[in-house]
C-alpha cells in the first residue's frame, strides 16, 4: 500500500494529489479509507470554493459511491449554480480515474435577519466527561479523540460524546471546525450504535450535515441515535453542538448486513474510527 505510516495528518499533499496516511484506514476493511477522512477532504474543498459574495455553508451532502482505496486521490470541485444569493458546489473524489465519492455543498449569502431561540443545550461539560474512547482500542493513529459520555460501540443505544480532530487534514492544512464537524457527523453511527459490530456490519453510504450556523470550536459535542425498521438499512440522526450550543443536524444511511455464520467479521470490524 502506498500510504505513509505514523503521520500527524490524515493526508500528505503531493502536487494535486492527496496521499492517505494511516489515520485514513477504515475500521471495516484496512484496504479502504474511513468515512471520516473522506468527509474531511470533501468538506474542505466545498468550504474553500470561492463565491461571488461572502457566503455560509448551509448543507453538505456526501455520497460514498464505492469503497475508497488507500491510494492517492484527486479532488475535482465545480460550481453548479453561481449567484449572489445562493451557490451550489459539487466536489468529487477520484482514485485512478474512478469516482469514489461526491459532495454537494449549498451556500447562502450572509445577511442580518431576526434570530429565534435555539433548543436548550443540556450536556456533561467537557472537563467532567470521562476519558472513555469510542471502543476498546484506542488507536494512536485514530483521526478523532473521543470522550464518550453515553453509548459508543460498547453500549447499544443512543450516544453522547465530546470529540475533536487529532490529526490535521494535511501537512499544511489543519482540520478546521467545519472539517471536524464533517468527520464527527460520519461517526454518529458509532456513537449511537445499536447493532453488535461482531455480528453486523453497518457502514454508512452517505453523510449529510444541515447547519444552523457554522461551528467555532475544535471540541464538539454529538448526540446520535440509530433508527431502523429492519429492512437491511438504518438512518442515524446526530445533533452537533459546540460550546455556544446546537449548530447542525447530521444524518447517515447505514447498509446493515449480517456477517453470517460462514464468514467471520474482518479483524478491524470491532472498531470504528
Amino acid at each position, binding site marked *: 500500500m502506498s500510504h505513509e505510516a505514523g503521520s500527524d495528518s490524515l493526508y500528505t499533499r503531493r502536487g494535486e494529489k492527496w496521499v492517505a496516511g494511516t489515520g485514513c484506514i477504515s475500521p471495516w476493511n484496512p484496504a479502504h479509507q474511513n468515512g471520516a477522512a473522506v468527509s474531511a477532504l470533501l468538506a474542505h474543498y466545498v468550504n474553500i470554493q470561492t463565491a461571488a459574495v461572502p457566503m*455560509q455553508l448551509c448543507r453538505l451532502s456526501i455520497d460514498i459511491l464505492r469503497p475508497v482505496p488507500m491510494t492517492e486521490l484527486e479532488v475535482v470541485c465545480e460550481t453548479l449554480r453561481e449567484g449572489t444569493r445562493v451557490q451550489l458546489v459539487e466536489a468529487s473524489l477520484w482514485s485512478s480515474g474512478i469516482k469514489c465519492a461526491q459532495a454537494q455543498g*449549498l451556500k447562502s449569502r450572509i445577511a442580518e435577519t431576526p434570530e429565534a431561540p435555539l433548543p436548550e443545550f443540556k450536556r456533561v461539560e467537557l472537563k467532567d466527561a470521562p476519558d472513555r474512547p469510542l471502543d476498546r482500542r484506542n488507536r494512536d493513529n485514530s483521526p478523532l479523540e473521543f470522550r464518550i459520555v453515553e453509548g459508543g460501540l460498547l453500549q447499544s443505544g443512543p450516544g453522547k460524546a465530546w470529540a475533536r480532530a487529532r490529526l490535521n487534514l494535511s501537512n499544511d492544512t489543519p482540520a478546521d471546525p467545519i472539517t471536524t464537524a464533517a468527520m464527527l457527523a460520519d461517526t454518529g453511527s458509532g456513537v449511537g450504535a445499536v447493532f453488535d459490530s461482531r455480528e453486523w456490519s453497518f457502514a454508512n453510504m452517505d453523510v449529510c450535515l*444541515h447547519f*444552523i450556523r457554522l461551528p467555532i470550536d475544535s471540541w464538539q459535542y454529538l448526540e446520535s441515535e440509530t433508527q431502523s425498521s429492519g429492512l437491511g438499512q438504518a438512518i442515524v440522526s446526530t445533533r452537533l453542538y459546540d460550546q455556544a450550543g446546537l449548530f447542525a443536524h447530521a444524518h447517515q444511511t447505514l447498509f446493515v*448486513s449480517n456477517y453470517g455464520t460462514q464468514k467471520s467479521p474482518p479483524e478491524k470490524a470491532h472498531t470504528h474510527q
Partner: protein
Amino acid sequence: MSTRSFYKSSDGAYHPQQPATGSWNKQHQNGVAVGGLLARLIDVAPEPRPMLTSRITIDILRAVPFGPLTATVETIRDGARQQVLTSRLFSDGVLVAQANALKVRIGSNPAAGLRMTEAPLPEEAGNIPVTRVLGAGHPMETRVVSGSGKDLGPGAYWTNFNAELVEGESISPLVRVVMAADIGSGVSSVLDSKTWSYANLDLSVYLARAPVDEWVLADCRTDTVGSGTGLVSTVLYDRNGEFGRAHQTLFINPRV
C-alpha cells in the same frame, strides 16, 4: 386547468395545473409540486433488485416558472447494494431543480429506535388548511396536531393529498412523503410572513421505511441565528409511528 392533478403529462413534458401554483409568487410553481415530480422520477427509475429510497435531497436552483417542464434521470452509481440517482427538471432548456437520491437494497435486520407517536390520529385532529393560496379547492388536506397558522414556532400537521401528482397516476408513498415534508417551513415559521420571506432552497428527506397510508405527520421546528438563513427540522410519522426525518434550508429576506 385541472384542480385534481398537479401536472398533466403530454408531448414529453409535464404541464403544471392549478395545484402547482407558487405560494410566494403565482408566476412560479410551488415546492410541493416540483419536489413531488423530482421524487416521482426517482421512484419510477428501474431498480436491479427491490430497493428502498433511503435519502432524497432536492435543490431548487432557481424560481420555477409556471410552464412546461422536461425531465432527465442520470444513474450516478448502479450496484447490487445501492443506487445513486440524479433527477433534473428543465424549463425552456434551463436546469431549474434537481434531486439526488440513494436507494438501498432491501434486507433484514432487527428493528431499532423508531418511536410511536402520541399525537391524535388524523381522524381525531382538527381540519385546518395550511395554505390559502388556492382557497377551498386545494387538494392538500391538513389536520393540526400542534401549533397554528397564526402563532409563530413549532407545528405538527397531518397532510394528505386528495389529488394525483401526474394525471392518471396515484401518488406513490415516496412522492407523498416528499410532498408532505415540504410544508415544514410554513407550519413552523419563526418570522412574520408579512415582513419576511423564507422560501426553502432545498429539501432533504431521510427514510427508515415508506409511510403505510396516505396520511403523513410532519412535526416541524425552525431554527435561525439571524444570519440570513434558517433550518427546518422535521420528524415524520404515520399512524404506525416514526419513519423518517427531513430538513429544509430557508433563504430569509425582507418581503418586498
